[in-house]
């Protein structure tokens, strides 16, 4: 296989389509561009409530960014700062991550995707960083983007791909409090927040809190495509 098929999770939202506001599957184009640039074929996966047999059509998977995860997924009460949640999207992505683990499918989690990986593996979230001691000034959110640095752990794949310290874009108000059974591979330089995780027993199971596809930082996408190709 020259160009592996990489699934990208996507939500369904009411979106303008012609003269209508319609339910549409919608995801930023930057994910598909990053996958094409990295030599893969992106296919967008709409959320649904069926078993994820789409996994058999894929060589790799990106769990994309998006809204807050329903806190019931990690056994917490709903914090008033947790914004709109989408239980169907949560369930779908949980099933896909579990199926990817079972089939050893290469998987990359981005922002919410990394958070979902941690939640599936028994982790939990800070529901609102601006009111979380030690992380009050983590960065912009609510559509805004700020930059900060992340220190990556030597000996890990993210370190070999991106180096010891990397400048990243930050646009989230929740953060991983505990990564569950996953290994932390990167932390924010200024406040120690978990920014990258991996599951070493898996062929390729990595998550990053930032959005590399929006800053043309394609190393992790290329690594995913290589793993998906089996090389």
């Amino acid at each position, binding site marked *: 296989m020259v*160009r592996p098929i990489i699934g990208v999770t996507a939500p369904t939202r009411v*979106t*303008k389509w012609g003269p209508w506001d319609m339910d549409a599957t*919608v*995801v930023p184009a930057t994910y598909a*561009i990053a996958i*094409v640039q990295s030599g893969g074929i992106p296919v967008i996966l709409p959320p649904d409530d*069926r078993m994820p047999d789409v996994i058999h059509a894929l060589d790799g998977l990106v769990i994309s960014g998006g809204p807050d995860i329903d806190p019931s997924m990690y056994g917490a009460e709903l914090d008033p700062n947790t914004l709109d949640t989408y239980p169907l999207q949560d369930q779908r992505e949980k099933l896909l991550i579990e199926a990817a683990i079972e089939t050893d499918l290469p998987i990359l989690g981005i922002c919410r995707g990394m958070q979902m990986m941690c939640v599936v593996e028994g982790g939990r979230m800070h529901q609102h960083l601006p009111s979380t001691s030690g992380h009050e000034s983590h960065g912009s959110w609510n559509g805004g983007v700020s930059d900060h640095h992340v220190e990556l752990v030597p000996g890990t794949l993210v370190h070999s791909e991106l180096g010891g310290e990397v400048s990243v874009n930050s646009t989230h108000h929740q953060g991983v409090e505990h990564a569950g059974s996953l290994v932390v591979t990167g932390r924010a330089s200024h406040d120690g927040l978990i920014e990258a995780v991996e599951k070493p027993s898996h062929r390729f199971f990595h998550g990053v809190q930032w959005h590399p596809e929006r800053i043309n930082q394609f190393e992790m996408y290329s690594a995913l495509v290589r793993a998906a190709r089996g090389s």
Partner: protein
Amino acid sequence: MKPRIGITSSVNKRDYESEDRDVVMLPWNYPSIIEECGGTPLILSEGSDPYSVLDALDGLIIAGGRDVDPSNYSQEAAPETTDTRLSQDHWEIALIIEAKRRKIPVLGICRGHQLIAVAHGGSLYQHLPTTSPFESHGAWGGNWSKHVVEVMGGTSLASILDGHCIVNSAHHQGVSDPGTLTINARSEDGLIEGLEDGESDFFISVQWHPEALGQKDLISALVNASSST
């Protein structure tokens, strides 16, 4: 494995997470009806190498969306032709041609129908509301219009749908010349509403929106044809 049905999507500017971003989007009813008809929907994104994409698919839908760039059929753009995207046209035309060559089942819907005609040397009316006698087509004030189409006997489409069916309409352009393709359906005013190539097992396009109409006969026929490839 269930038949894998690729559906082409559109890149549009939308306010999504932040203002005015390029997003890949497709109305939800396309993947939804494919699931209901027993297929696995995979939404395809412009720019993906068509040859590699088709290696991973059993069937293909060229979906509805924006106007086809008139340069594809050697016309100047009429004032009503807006929001064209030549890169998307070229990507989908390459998918259409290569899928047909490989005998992968193809269903074109609305824009997909028009693009399939153009890919076979056909041509379009750029604005039906000012083209006699087709003024009544389309969606106005946010409402679909409905009309009857006659399916031509002896065509592939006639083996799937009844001779007369009521369809929905949400388009302002239409096929004026089917190129090398065979007409398999017309509306009462004579507009070309469906095309097929007369050779492939399943290479059909329709001007209406079966996914929005819940017309499972047609989608199931695509999924079934795709499962035998």
